[in-house]
């Protein structure tokens, strides 16, 4: 059974999901369109930042409406994503730099 979600929650949540999905889609299209690794890493981070942010806010809205109390788990996901993303990015960039520049003889 679907729980009742009031319209004033459903509408903004739906919009956020659509926007988040489109942002992530455009970021993924960038993976195909952009010519090199260094440019592609920028487009992937679209889904990783505002894309995931929109989905999390939508999730907060719907979960709070269904549970009839504020649900703020999603803030933790935001925190963990923001804190850990630079590590992956830095490691990938370092690896890419090392691979594109041949070692000096």
């Amino acid at each position, binding site marked *: 059974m679907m729980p009742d979600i009031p319209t004033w929650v459903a509408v903004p949540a739906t919009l956020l999901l659509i926007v988040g999905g489109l*942002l992530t889609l*455009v*970021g993924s*299209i*960038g993976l195909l*369109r*952009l010519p090199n690794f*260094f*440019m592609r*890493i*920028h*487009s992937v*981070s*679209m889904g990783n*930042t*505002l*894309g995931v*942010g929109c989905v999390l806010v939508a999730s907060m809205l719907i979960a709070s409406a269904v549970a009839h109390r504020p649900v*703020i*788990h999603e*803030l*933790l996901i935001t*925190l963990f994503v*923001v*804190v850990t*993303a*630079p590590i992956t*990015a*830095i490691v990938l*960039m*370092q690896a890419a*730099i090392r691979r594109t520049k041949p070692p000096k003889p």
Partner: protein
Amino acid sequence: MMRIPVLLPLGLTVLWLVLTETLTFGNVLLGLVVGFGMVLSFQKLRPVRPRLGRVRVAFGLAFKVLVDIVKSNFAVGRIVLGMTGGREVRSGFLDIPLDMRDPHGLAVLAMIVTATPGTVWSGLTDDSSVLKLHVLDLQDPEEWIRTIKQRYERPLREIFE
């Protein structure tokens, strides 16, 4: 005498309470014990401690970063979809001289730079004096250096130094 850290263990406790969503006495106690125990034992491993200066600056900075994340998302989206009005997009590396030495401030700067699409942290010299950044749409290098230094580094130095 060693100062006992308060902010980080309390923060960890709050994190635990939000995660478990139970506000019973036992759960709060568990969070406090694990939080303080973890921070105190990790102090031996990593003795560097952040000094928080002007915390109020942090709220302004957080808001600015949020706005920048939204703006740069749409900027990168336009570039991906080729809506640049015929302008050629040049991406490249940028060396930014930094005045900030505090590792916590640098860590936050890394988060900000990574969280805004269009800029990626790609390296830091060993003495953390020069930050290498990869920028997707590098039109005006001087402008980028000014932005990073004025918009992010200055408030971060006010907070952490």
